[in-house]
């Protein structure tokens, strides 16, 4: 289509199906957490509807794109959309990083009496603030002054698996860029090869992350072991979740490349996924520095 004409899609049922799916999923999840027996089945049903919606909706978009219905303007709209979506994801992570910084540099020292909290330690007999020793009693119970128990856990070291994982992810960024270059020069075989390499690196990262969790768990660091455990698992967990999404998206792209969906100058889907992957990569660098290293 030409640049002079606007593209407007026809009506669609996918959004309402998506809403039904997500709502079902969440209602099931909430009930499952409250110990209602049908909770998990409803959750699975909602998940299935959501996945169905994603396949259907994205499938339709792919179809339209392959049939040349989109012009350059539509392509730019997608680009704006994807970039600001990624920005919103950045802000989502920012909330958790904020919690990490706040707890580590403010609230934990305050519990130990820093700053204007000179009297606070009266509530916590014998507690001395340090980042890795921060569980007093089981969180969620009623506060009881004078019952400070520190459960020492080792800080998860930055060297070893986290460092290795950093290298893996950085490498995957490079291989993905190679794939992109190959796509631009229309070298399909190289695209496939580099994409497979990228996916493999992502999967390896996830595998090591699981091993890493095993180690951490063994030293007594759990989601429930105070703020250190909370921030550690929530940050790395959400990141891992995003890596998994990225791997799935890359795999879809891999199939689409093999089906010949992309041309050397028109491959927004590829680029969108690549941006997403780089975003996941950058978040990891933040994690590596602030969760493991410093």
């Amino acid at each position, binding site marked *: 289509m030409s640049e002079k004409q606007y593209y407007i899609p026809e009506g669609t049922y996918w959004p309402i199906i998506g809403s039904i799916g997500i709502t079902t999923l969440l209602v099931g999840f909430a009930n499952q957490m409250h110990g209602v027996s049908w909770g998990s089945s409803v959750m699975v049903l909602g998940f299935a509807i959501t996945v169905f919606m994603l396949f259907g909706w994205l499938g339709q978009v792919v179809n339209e794109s392959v049939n040349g219905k989109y012009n350059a303007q539509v392509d730019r709209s997608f680009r704006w959309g994807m970039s600001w979506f990624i920005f919103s994801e950045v802000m989502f992570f920012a909330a958790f990083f904020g919690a990490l910084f706040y707890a580590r540099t403010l609230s934990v020292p*305050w*519990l130990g009496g820093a700053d*204007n*909290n000179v*009297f*606070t330690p*009266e*509530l*916590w007999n014998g507690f001395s603030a340090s980042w890795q020793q921060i569980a007093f009693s089981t969180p*969620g*119970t*009623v*506060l*009881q002054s004078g019952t400070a128990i520190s459960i020492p856990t080792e800080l998860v070291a930055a060297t070893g698996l986290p460092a290795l994982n950093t290298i893996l992810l950085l490498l995957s960024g490079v291989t993905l860029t190679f794939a992109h270059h190959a796509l631009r020069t229309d070298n399909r075989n190289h695209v496939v090869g580099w994409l497979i390499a990228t996916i493999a690196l992502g999967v390896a990262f996830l595998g090591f992350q699981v091993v890493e969790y095993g180690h951490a768990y063994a030293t007594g660091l759990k989601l429930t072991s105070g703020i250190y455990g909370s921030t550690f698992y929530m940050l790395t967990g959400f990141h891992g979740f995003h890596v998994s999404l990225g791997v799935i998206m890359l795999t879809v792209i891999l199939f689409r490349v093999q089906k010949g969906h992309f041309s050397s100058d028109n491959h927004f889907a590829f680029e969108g996924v690549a941006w997403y992957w780089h975003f996941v990569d950058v978040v990891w660098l933040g994690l590596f520095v602030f969760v493991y290293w410093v």
Partner: protein
Amino acid sequence: MGKLSKVIASSIALLSTAVFSEYGLNMTEGVTSISHDIYDLHMMVFWVCVVIAAIVFGAMFYSVFAHRKSKGAVAAQFHESTKAEILWTLVPVVILVGMAIPASKTLIDLEDTSKAEMTVKVTGHQWKWQYDYPKEGISFISNLAKTSKDSVASDIDNLNNENYKTGATSVDNYLLEVDKRLVLPVDTSIRFLITSNDVIHNWWVLDFGVKQDANPGFINDAWAKVDKIGTYRGQCAELCGKDHGFMPIVVDVVSKADYAKWVEKEQASAAAAIASATQVWSKADLMSKGKKVYESNCAGCHKMDGSGMPPIFPAIKDSAIANGIASEHMTIVLHGKAGMPTFKMLGDADLASVITYERNAFGNTGSVVQPSDVKSAR
């Protein structure tokens, strides 16, 4: 229907008897140096706003009246002036700086608690205040007074009651009276250490210019030096659940001599309480004392008749714990559980009696618990 017409009738009565002069339109000046400073700041900013408002709205209404089409006004076409924009950016900045200077001074002063001569620790509970005088060894709980709430409360007929209309006697302090007041000496710098045992509360006495969040797990501080003997009232100022509106604060500020006497009396009765806790009590004594403790401490959640508010607040009536083994009952009252707060700040005798009461009132058939049992269960 009867209810509604009464509401309307009493509303009319209210309006006709109401004297506006009695009701402050403005913040009180208060009785501490901080509250005076705050009042001055408040008035200063207020008047600045009034002046700006007069100019801005003056200009607006002038043009609304003078530049209307019906008067034949023809629209000018000017629509830009960098000079004007700069002017009305800079002038407000200057005004704001003028406000910020005294505000900063007051802020720094009120955060500096180092000059304190004595310390009172204030702990918020759902929904009452606990006061500790660490040096003097005094500790007590302050609840909303029953008389205060019952005087009007949900009984709509009381709206027509003479006391209410004239605003006299006990109803005067409707919702603002406690069963045991905080007592403080005049002309003394007092440091308040403020914390909470469950959710966030906020300890606020308007006349002191003291309002500070009570955060569970942290201790905040504030200070006041009261320069006038009198009774001062305040309320919890942070939403803390169901009875947030019913946890008032009453402070008696007394002369230093009276304060010393009060301290002596409190210490004596504390000693007596400890002594009585070593005795064996009769069931009747436990029950009658227990009823009082229950009504002021527990009925807020578990209700006067022990029916609770399921599912959030379980019933005590027919409760498995209240009819079961005493040790479990003591554990939950001493240490709390989820929404159930700990009550270990109460004395052994109080706890023994309230537990006995719960186990034998409302048709329950539990055992009797003695203060010595509580002591060993702690």
